[in-house]
């Protein structure tokens, strides 16, 4: 006879879970009571949001399912932002929440929340367990949905009496998916059509999204791009999929994308979208998105098609299947010479890549940091101006090397997510870049970093503002800086020291000379090479802005390239 909690843990082990993140409380206590002999390592965070973001970090960098545990009521509701984040960014995540005992459900009992209802629209699949007998099937099915197709979040809510009850347990089960409706899947016929479209095109481009890395089709993608040799760019989650040295690579596209990428996307007459859902931050005004282009959309999730702009050809399926099929067909044909278009499209990008041309000290700082990183590294960015600066300067060919909350844009993501990344990749240099606003949203996880001795390199870009909001206020709200002033920030160096984490400060004046002084270079090197957790606070000009910028509702061609009056 095993308790329900022991059955849960055995089923998790059977799904390959070795690490999970959580925070105990009343209803989930039976699960914690059974943890010790489970063979699963549990990491205590200092807030449930820290746990779910850490689980996301682990999942994003490994591709495995992340697991977060919380108790009922406030424990469960504190997971909600992470669940929404996982839904938006296609992160495989299973959240297990304790619930009040079955007899009390619906009675507004202490710490009772309808977490099943609260998370219904945010999850890919969820269950409130009604019997101890259901536990093996529910966990097997939950993991199936979390990792299958377009990955996403799953919630399994277990009343505390189910965790305490005992039953004979014959072992974990395998979930056999039910017959699904016949979905339109690419049957191979699409390849002729795309080749014909390419042969008629004069300015084709490729847009790569997160689907490329989620499908594990990076080698296939790179071979295809090498064959096509047409301008290519990436969404924020597609960064790293295309080697930045590739002569056809134009960097990031979208609201803060490069001038070259946005211009090429505006001018193209054939857009091949590979595993991107074309959200509004990528398209700008959808009615003026790629206005001259036919669109071919490779996508695993049919629900993502035609949301913003109808495509001319949908190729539904896993990129690991559809790209090789396309490439095989391509080899039987001769394509037009696109070199003239490529040299026009790629022209301006070279200047943007040269750090000497970058007057903005924060960008210079990030360039300097990134260029001095050990080869084996992962960069996390929180949400805001620093996120976009980091994305613009990211120049790694590692598909899972840049991790950020893209779709939801959840401030406070990066620090706890870095915990998950560092635990998954103990020999990797994990660089976590935050703003002064977002850092304070999960600052308590410094305690987790210290407890585990994780050598995470923490950077705060401190402009003493909610910088991105302030930038919008400057550009679009007549400089009415309403409630974005953070000039009374605490001393982050002292805060870090209170958490027993070594910290230092660098002023942006140090970045005004090029190349940087030996002293500044040594400081950055010693920061990055430390085997301990470290914090570096970079004092940034309060009114530094991120450019290029496509104003909300504008076309990509209407990007602002520098501070200028807009109204």
């Amino acid at each position, binding site marked *: 006879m095993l308790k329900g909690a022991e059955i849960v843990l055995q089923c998790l082990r059977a799904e390959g879970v070795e690490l999970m993140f959580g925070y105990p409380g009343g209803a989930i206590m039976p699960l914690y009571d059974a943890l010790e002999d489970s063979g699963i390592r549990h990491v205590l965070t200092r807030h449930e949001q820290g746990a779910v973001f850490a689980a996301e970090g682990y999942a994003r960098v490994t591709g495995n399912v992340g697991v977060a545990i919380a108790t009922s009521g406030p424990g469960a509701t504190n997971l909600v932002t992470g669940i929404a984040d996982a839904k938006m960014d296609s992160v495989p995540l299973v959240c297990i929440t304790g619930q009040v005992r079955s007899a009390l459900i619906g009675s507004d009992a202490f710490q009772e929340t309808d977490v099943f209802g609260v998370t219904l629209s945010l999850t890919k699949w969820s269950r409130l367990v009604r019997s101890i007998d259901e536990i093996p099937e529910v966990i097997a099915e939950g993991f199936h*949905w979390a990792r299958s197709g377009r990955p996403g979040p799953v919630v399994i809510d277990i009343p505390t009496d189910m965790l305490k009850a005992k039953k004979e347990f014959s072992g974990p089960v395998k979930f056999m998916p039910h017959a699904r409706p016949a*979905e339109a899947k690419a049957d191979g016929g699409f390849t002729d059509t795309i080749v014909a479209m390419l042969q008629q095109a004069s300015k084709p481009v490729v847009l790569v999204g997160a689907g490329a890395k989620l499908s594990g089709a990076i080698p296939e993608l790179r071979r295809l791009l090498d064959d096509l040799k047409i301008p290519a760019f990436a969404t924020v989650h597609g960064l790293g999929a295309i080697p930045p040295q590739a002569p056809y690579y134009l960097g990031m596209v979208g609201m803060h994308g490069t001038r070259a990428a946005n211009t090429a996307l505006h001018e193209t007459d054939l857009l091949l979208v590979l595993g991107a859902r074309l959200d509004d931050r990528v398209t700008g005004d959808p009615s003026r998105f790629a206005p001259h282009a036919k669109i071919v959309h490779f996508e695993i*999730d049919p*629900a993502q*098609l035609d*949301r913003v702009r109808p495509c001319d050809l949908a190729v539904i399926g896993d990129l690991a299947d559809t790209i090789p099929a396309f490439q095989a067909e391509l080899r039987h044909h001769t394509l037009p010479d696109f070199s003239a278009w490529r040299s026009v499209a790629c022209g301006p990008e070279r200047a943007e890549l040269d750090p000497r041309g970058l007057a903005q000290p924060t960008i210079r700082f990030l360039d300097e940091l990134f260029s001095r990183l050990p080869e084996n590294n992962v960069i996390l960015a929180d949400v805001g101006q620093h996120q976009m600066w980091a994305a613009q300067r990211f120049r790694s060919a590692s598909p899972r090397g840049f991790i950020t909350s893209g779709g939801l844009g959840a401030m406070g993501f990066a620090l706890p997510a870095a915990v998950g990344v560092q635990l998954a990749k103990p020999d990797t240099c994990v660089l976590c870049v935050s703003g002064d606003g977002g850092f304070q949203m999960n600052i308590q996880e410094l305690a987790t970093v210290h407890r585990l001795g994780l050598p995470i390199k923490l950077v705060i870009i401190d402009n003493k503002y909610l910088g991105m909001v302030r930038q919008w206020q400057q550009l679009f709200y007549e400089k009415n800086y309403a409630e974005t002033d953070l000039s009374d920030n605490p001393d982050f160096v002292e805060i870090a020291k209170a958490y027993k984490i070594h910290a230092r400060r660098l002023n942006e004046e140090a970045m005004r000379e090029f190349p940087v002084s030996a002293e500044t270079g040594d400081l950055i090197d010693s920061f990055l090479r430390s085997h301990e957790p470290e914090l570096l606070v970079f004092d940034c000009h309060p009114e530094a802005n991120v450019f290029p910028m496509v104003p909300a509702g504008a076309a990509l061609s209407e990007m602002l390239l520098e501070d200028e009056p807009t109204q």
Partner: protein
Amino acid sequence: MQAFQIHYRNTQGTLMRILNAASRRGLDLHSVQAVAVDRDHQVTLVLEVNQKQVGQLYREWYSIADVTHVRPVAAHGDAWATAHPPAGVSLEDGRSAARA
């Protein structure tokens, strides 16, 4: 007005997910009728919806784990003549009707 018939396995939350696909878009659910059909369930929805939303709804419904089939049906006939719940009925009217 457009009517849809959605077949689904009646697992926890599946009907709510189907309805949520409409409600998250701010669409008025003019009529909802859910019944058991053989071993599965079927819900018929009547919505004010434009062509772009029809495509979105189809794909989102199909992405729900236990939805098995979606098809459009004619949005006319007596069944759809009255809004459900009747538009403009106050809580007190409803209570009066219940007492009667």
